[in-house]
């Protein structure tokens, strides 16, 4: 079976800044694939290259066998992008934006009208149809951006932060619509820095950081990559130092540890039993334990494990 997208050694420079660094990925047909990383990780550049908006500095990208550099017109016929920042003329009405988008993607007549109405109803946009784009709130602008792809129903749908600025109810509606797109035969790529979104939606996830691929797999596979079954998160009263963390790691036989300022994360088996010993040991070094939390690993932990930074902290 032909893969939906094949990225081979993709590199993209903006001037002297390397936004994407030798990225190689394969996205399977009808898969929901997540691209997870903090802002500035290279997600949007990767998306824009796949969508033929940007040309790669080096490397190749194939979309259902079409080379994005040599056959861009063929690629654009089967791909659709919902951008992170909603794209529309601020003086256009909502219904005009969506109808024009449908026409630009080859829809017409009753099919176009029907799809526009259906999607607008679904995303709560119909009552705002005659409002100018500039009169909408950030969340509604984002819904308009997402609506474009739901109307278009492209073979490959790429969503860049599809639920950013959208409330919980809207977020679940968009997730449902994204799943339905797949059921209708589309392959989906979702760039996000929302771990929950990636876990809930995606069959497989690639974590990228500073333009490089860190790891790729299903959410469960990625979590299994963290040695030790439990994640113990401790917050103390002052910044931690390496010697103390190393000693603690040996004492409780943690498979690995990460720390940043006064926060420590230990990956270990039987975390619950180890917690009293951890607090005691920290006390011996004059650290007062303010908070202890034990949890199943999340994709954020996976990201932290591989990169040493938290996704929500923007990778800084």
């Amino acid at each position, binding site marked *: 079976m032909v893969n939906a997208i094949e990225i081979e050694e993709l590199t993209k420079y903006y001037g002297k800044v390397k936004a994407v660094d030798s990225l190689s990925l394969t996205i399977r047909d009808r898969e929901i694939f997540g691209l997870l990383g903090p802002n500035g990780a290279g997600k949007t550049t990767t998306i824009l290259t796949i969508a033929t*908006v*940007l*040309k790669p500095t080096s490397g190749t990208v194939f979309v259902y066998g079409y080379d994005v550099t040599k056959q861009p*017109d063929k690629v654009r016929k089967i791909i659709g*992008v919902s*951008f992170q920042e909603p794209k529309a003329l601020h003086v256009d009405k909502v219904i005009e934006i969506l109808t024009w988008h449908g026409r630009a993607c080859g829809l017409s007549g009753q099919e176009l009208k029907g799809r526009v109405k259906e999607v607008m109803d679904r995303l709560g946009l119909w009552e705002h149809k005659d409002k100018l784009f500039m009169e909408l709130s950030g969340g509604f602008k984002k819904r308009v951006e997402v609506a474009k792809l739901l109307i278009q129903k492209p073979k490959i749908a790429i969503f860049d932060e599809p639920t950013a600025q959208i409330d919980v109810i809207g977020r679940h509606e968009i997730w449902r619509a994204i799943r339905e797109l797949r059921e209708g035969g589309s392959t989906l790529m979702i760039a996000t820095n929302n771990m929950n979104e990636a876990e809930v939606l995606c069959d497989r996830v690639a974590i990228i950081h500073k333009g490089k691929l860190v790891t790729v797999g299903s959410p469960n596979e990625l979590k299994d990559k963290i040695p030790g079954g439990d994640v113990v998160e401790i917050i103390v009263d002052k910044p931690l130092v390496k010697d103390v963390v190393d000693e603690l790691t040996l004492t409780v036989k943690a498979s690995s540890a990460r720390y940043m300022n006064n926060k420590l994360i230990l990956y270990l088996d039987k975390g619950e039993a180890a917690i009293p010993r951890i607090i005691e040991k920290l006390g011996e070094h004059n650290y007062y334990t303010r908070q202890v939390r034990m949890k199943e690993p999340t994709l954020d932990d996976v990201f932290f494990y591989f990169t040493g930074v938290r996704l929500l902290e923007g990778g800084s």
Partner: protein
Amino acid sequence: MRGMFLIIEKDLRKIRRYKFFITMRYTWFIIQVLVFGLAISKIVALKDFYRYYLVGVYSSILFLMSIYTGYDIISEAEYGLFDYYLSLPIPRKEFIMGKIIGSGMSSLIYTTPMLITILSLIGVNSLVNLILALFSALLFSLGISGLIISITMMVKSGDISDILFGAISTLLVRLSTVYYPIAIMPDYYKIFASINPLSHAAELLRFLLIGEYYSFPPEITITLLIGLAIGMSSIASIIIEKVIEGGVWR
């Protein structure tokens, strides 16, 4: 061609949203025509100078609107709309031609109330000439929009473009035959005025709308305007294609 028409349509749709802008421009035009125009035509000792002046004012407004609509491309780039357009299944060449033609047509439509006003003052001598005048105005708009789009896409900065176009428009309007015929200009002005596309647009429009020409014969002006429209549209399309491919406008 469908993609090109869609881009043109999108550009033309902007017009109805700029009612305030058009009203302001029209008000200024009326003041220029009814106050300055009448006053100055009493000073300048040239037969039918008021009619000469009216077509000149219209030409300069058309010129300024062509700069404005061409310049609009930078705001679309800055709002990130290029990313959106370029991701659509619209061939690049159609997108580029759509932007140039859309800008040119928008300028013509923006200035329609002004054209109607001067026609009501000078009268319509022939329907064929009026149609030819509209076509000439469109050619001129396409040429100027192409020129402005080319400069804007090379400069890639709204602020720098703004300053640059202020200087260009000030110079070109003054060093032209918009307000005075070449015969009464100082010699050092004549060289600039005779190569200035605005002079030729004004002269051709005068020939078609008034039936007289004052500085250059219509064969020369129409040839120059066709050359300007084709030349600048071609240059603009080459520049846009080079700039947008690879996201260099960012």
